[in-house]
């Protein structure tokens, strides 16, 4: 009964504002914007199913007069090779994205837990410093990191760190995983800290009175309670890495290029091969779109929280 009252009470202002704000004109205006927003994507999407010759000789809107659908663009694109094959580039994207999403979350959780639940001198200053690190734009990091990975570090003429082997720089992904992890940490720690710090003190104390050490509390109490935030952040980081071009451009030089870098290159060299670009684009954005539609709620939360990254 009380639930019912609550529901109807919450509906009442709802209905009234409805009358206040919405009008047929407003809805019509919104629909016009929505159409304008969707048309470019729709045009490219439709084109990807048209015969290759038709794409470059007639506009996609003529499709409705002469409908002709084919999957050959996708077949040819998956077969296409320019340095590396499109399939390899998609695989590379997956290989880059999964570790680059998981590693910063785990490291961020460890640090965020300590910042939230271990009292020590300078804790606030450390937290503010980490928060402030978010302001560093990616562009500040690229060149020094590239030099670090390829040439290592020397201090006072002594070669300290030799850098990565040439083989792993052109075929491997270590430098990409590490770069994404390092640049993700400030935001990861900030978000996860907010969520861990929101756990009631009584819950944490109860666990500690039961004799659990920090390691156990971390696993049994903190992790489960922070799961929604972890999910939001994981989705955000996954999409961020999947969609990234800048890190890929600097740190993947050969066999390890992800699909975004390949598409960007193709768009320059094969700029008029629209059968390739239409199908390639949709092969690249299908993963984020699936994530978007499947996990919309987490997706929105993650995007909102991480919107200043990079």
């Amino acid at each position: 009964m009380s639930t019912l009252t609550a529901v109807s009470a919450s509906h009442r202002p709802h209905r009234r504002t409805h009358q206040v704000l919405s009008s047929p004109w407003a809805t019509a205006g919104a629909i016009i914007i929505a159409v304008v927003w969707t048309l470019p994507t729709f045009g490219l999407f439709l084109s990807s199913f048209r015969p290759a010759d038709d794409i470059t000789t007639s506009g996609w809107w003529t499709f409705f007069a002469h409908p002709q659908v084919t999957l050959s663009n996708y077949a040819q694109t998956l077969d296409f090779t320019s340095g590396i094959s499109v399939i390899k580039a998609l695989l590379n994207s997956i290989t880059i994205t999964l570790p680059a999403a998981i590693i910063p979350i785990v490291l961020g959780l460890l640090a965020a837990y300590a910042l939230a639940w271990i009292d020590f001198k300078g804790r606030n200053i450390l937290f503010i410093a980490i928060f402030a690190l978010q302001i560093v734009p990616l562009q500040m990091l690229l060149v020094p990191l590239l030099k670090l990975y390829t040439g290592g570090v020397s201090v006072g003429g002594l070669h300290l760190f030799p850098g990565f082997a040439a083989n792993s720089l052109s075929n491997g992904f270590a430098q990409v995983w590490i770069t994404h992890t390092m640049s993700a940490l400030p935001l990861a720690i900030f978000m996860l800290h907010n969520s861990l710090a929101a756990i009631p003190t009584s819950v944490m104390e109860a666990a500690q009175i039961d004799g659990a050490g920090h390691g156990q509390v971390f696993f049994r109490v903190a992790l489960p309670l922070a799961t929604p935030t972890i999910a939001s952040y994981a989705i955000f980081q996954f999409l961020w890495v999947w969609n990234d071009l800048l890190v890929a451009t600097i740190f993947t030089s050969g066999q390890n290029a992800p699909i975004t870098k390949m598409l960007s290159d193709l768009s320059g060299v094969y700029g008029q091969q629209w059968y390739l670009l239409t199908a390639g684009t949709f092969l690249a954005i299908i993963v984020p779109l699936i994530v978007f539609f499947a996990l919309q709620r987490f997706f929105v939360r993650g995007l909102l929280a991480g919107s200043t990254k990079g």
Partner: protein
Amino acid sequence: MQAFFAWLAGLPQLVQIPIVIVAFLVVVGAVIFLIEVVPRSGRGLSWVRAAIAIGVPVVVLAVLGLEKGAAWVFLLGAVLGGGLFWLDARSSKGRGRLIQLALFVSPALLMMAVGLIYPTLRTIVSAFMDKSGTTFVGLDNFAWVFSAGGSGGLSSLINTIVWVVIAPVAATFVGLVYALWVDRSRGEKFLKVLIFMPMSISLVGASIIWKFFYDYRQGNQIGLLNQIVAWFGGQPVNWLQHYPLNMFLLIIILVWSQTGFAMVILSAAIKGVPAELIEAAQLDGASSVRRFVNVIIPVIRPTIVVVWVTISITALKVYDIIAVTTAGQNSSSVLGYEMVRQFSLLPPQSGHSAALALLIFILVIPFIAYNARSLRKDS
């Protein structure tokens, strides 16, 4: 570690993912195991603590692949570990606490020191060095940016400012109007998804989508924009070749992708405006436009500013859109792209590149400081 990554790079692609994740989790598991062991009391455990405090830094340094000549670095690591043990043993809040703390935070702190602080300092230094990075040249690189003859420096700075002025305002405005128009209308959810979806598409994908829209060719047009021009009897235009027109058309791509973000946040804010306020204004006979301007806008003003600031930061750092569409041709470059281009020239203009990166950094600071301040006000 180098050997591990080199070995990993030679493995079949899909095997690399589980191996690296499992290897990473094993290391994290070991760290958590140590965290559990460290605070136990009992005879001999002081020795365990000392071994952990001194041994872990040494092992980490060894795994990083430091060269043999660097014995003093290992010594330094051991001394620091010893210092930690000493501090921990004297701590009044119980033994093991400080070592635990170090185990929790140092992986992330180390990575941020190496990956964020060190490169930032290096780039700041490089901005005042010549292209070889060894000779101090004072403000020469900035003089290059601000000189009209500099190949791309000044125009990319000017363009970036135009981007930051236009894109956030346009995206916020359209997002706000749209949020208001769809608010509580029929099909609100669906209409929102249409606008929000571009956010999940990479800027690379978005740029190709719009490049197709802007396409220009002789004869039959395949780009919708030129077709619309043709339908109205005009001549097709090579849109991306003419400055400043190309810049505005590229800005549209960013607006297109960011409007959804603005819309979602502002929509939530609009739903938070008390209905009584709106009703009161209605009873006063205010028109719907006036209700909007005088009642809703003032209430959600802080949210509008946060959205605007956030998109400004994105606009400042744009790289992908330029790289995919024009590659900076026809004066369309921006700071974020020009910085990379200067470094990829032969020989690399690292001084110019660093100066441009530093300019982005400086321009970003006020926006982030503002966002941080309003964030703190919230909490």
